[in-house]
């Protein structure tokens, strides 16, 4: 990107800036529209009559959305269906499956596509059912209970799934990006260059308005690396969810749970004496013990519950927001197949385009909220009694 740095040739400069802006916007629009087309393409492949016989279009779209929301053992990029034969071809690449079932079993997920979906590994047979791996016999039989849940044994699954691949890629991208940025700062005498001009204000915003504002001048440095990493990790993954790759990592409750557990552990283990005192003895010396016991019967359980509700709300918020975004977007694209007339195309495109733009905002907002609330919890945990008093005095003063 080109930025104006000197004040000569201001007119040319502003023109060039405008040009860059227009170019940037058109690239953005192109990407968003491409993502709509790509997701539309993905819908088509499921329209082929499946083994369950003919389903209505609505059911097929619902099934496809559910399939998209789940993690997958294949990295499926797109697929196409032959209109005449009804044969579906998938394009993508297989991922390694790593199972622990009385011993290590490793094979590529592409093996599930041959031999009636049964993979033989070290004398055990495995099959894939709704993206979950079950132990089975040579025919690939799956037994169901009365609620149609499989009763087969599930081995411990440590596979490199689609989500894991995306998380590894994002981690590598973050490592490479910020490592090279820090090197460029050292080289250029602490001046941002290139993409650093874009990231510097964001990093500074997180430091000044999230970390320092919530944790305080003295202690924020201990937490800042975690806050920055979480913010960019969540933001990048949210943005990858909007690309035509069709990944849904932050809309996976296991991923958000892991993030929230890390926040919980940091809050718990960096908690000061005053933090725990605030939970178990909030009234302090201000009241005789007889009165305190009566109040604490109610108060202390609520405070302890609050310890767990905080990270729980964190994980549900991120998961639900991203899942809701994906469902809305894909349902709108599915309108094309429900309308089956000329109205469907423009309507679906217009609506999904608008929602895509909102999702761009939501992707940033959710990363911000997660980081912000994590910083708030860290602030509660690291605050000492004296600081708390001073802070309250300040608030009253205002």
């Amino acid at each position, binding site marked *: 990107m080109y930025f104006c740095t000197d004040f000569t040739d201001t007119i040319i400069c502003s023109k060039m800036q405008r040009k860059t802006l227009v170019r940037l916007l058109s690239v953005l629009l192109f990407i968003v529209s491409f993502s709509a087309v790509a997701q539309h393409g993905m819908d088509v492949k499921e329209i082929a009559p499946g083994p369950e016989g003919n389903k209505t279009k609505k059911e097929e779209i619902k099934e496809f959305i559910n399939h998209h929301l789940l993690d997958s053992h294949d990295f499926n990029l797109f697929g196409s269906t032959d209109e005449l034969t009804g044969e579906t071809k998938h394009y993508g690449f297989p991922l390694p499956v790593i199972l622990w079932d009385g011993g290590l079993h490793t094979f590529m997920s592409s093996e599930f596509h041959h031999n009636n979906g049964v993979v033989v590994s070290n004398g055990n047979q495995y099959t894939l059912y709704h993206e979950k791996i079950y132990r089975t016999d040579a025919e690939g039989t799956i037994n169901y209970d009365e609620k149609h849940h499989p009763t087969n044994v599930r081995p411990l699954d440590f596979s490199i799934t689609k989500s894991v691949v995306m998380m590894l890629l994002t981690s590598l991208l973050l490592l490479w990006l910020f490592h090279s940025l820090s090197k460029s700062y050292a080289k250029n005498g602490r001046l941002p260059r290139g993409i650093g001009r874009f990231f510097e204000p964001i990093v500074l915003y997180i430091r000044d*308005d999230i970390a320092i504002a919530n944790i305080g001048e003295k202690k924020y440095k201990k937490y800042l690396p975690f806050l920055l990493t979480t913010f960019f990790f969540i933001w990048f993954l949210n943005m990858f969810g909007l690309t035509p790759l069709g990944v849904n990592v932050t809309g996976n409750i296991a991923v958000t749970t892991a993030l929230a557990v890390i926040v919980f552990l940091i809050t718990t283990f960096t908690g000061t004496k005053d933090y725990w005192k605030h939970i178990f003895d909030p009234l302090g010396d201000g009241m005789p013990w007889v009165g305190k016991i009566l109040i604490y019967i109610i108060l202390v359980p609520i405070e302890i519950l609050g310890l767990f509700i905080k990270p729980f709300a964190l994980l549900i*918020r991120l998961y639900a*927001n991203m899942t809701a975004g994906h469902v809305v977007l894909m349902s709108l694209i599915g309108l094309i197949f429900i309308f089956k007339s000329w109205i469907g195309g423009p309507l679906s495109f217009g609506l999904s385009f608008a929602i895509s733009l909102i999702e761009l905002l939501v992707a940033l907002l959710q990363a911000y909220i997660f980081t912000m609330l994590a910083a708030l919890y860290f602030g509660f945990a690291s605050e000492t009694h004296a600081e708390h008093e001073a802070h309250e005095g300040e608030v009253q003063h205002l």
Partner: protein
Amino acid sequence: MTIPTIVGAGLAVIGAGIGIGMIGGKAMEAIARQPEAYGKIQTAMLIAAALIEGIGFAAIFAG
């Protein structure tokens, strides 16, 4: 999904919607009254909205 659960979830979401709407409106008023406190008001508004949103989502998943 039965009809009562859907209606219940819908009611809860209406409640969350009203809540977020009120927060947004009050924040607008506050910013209009004190434009220099824009940053602080916005942060507080987002936190409150996020907390209410959590309740809304919890209701959707319960429903």
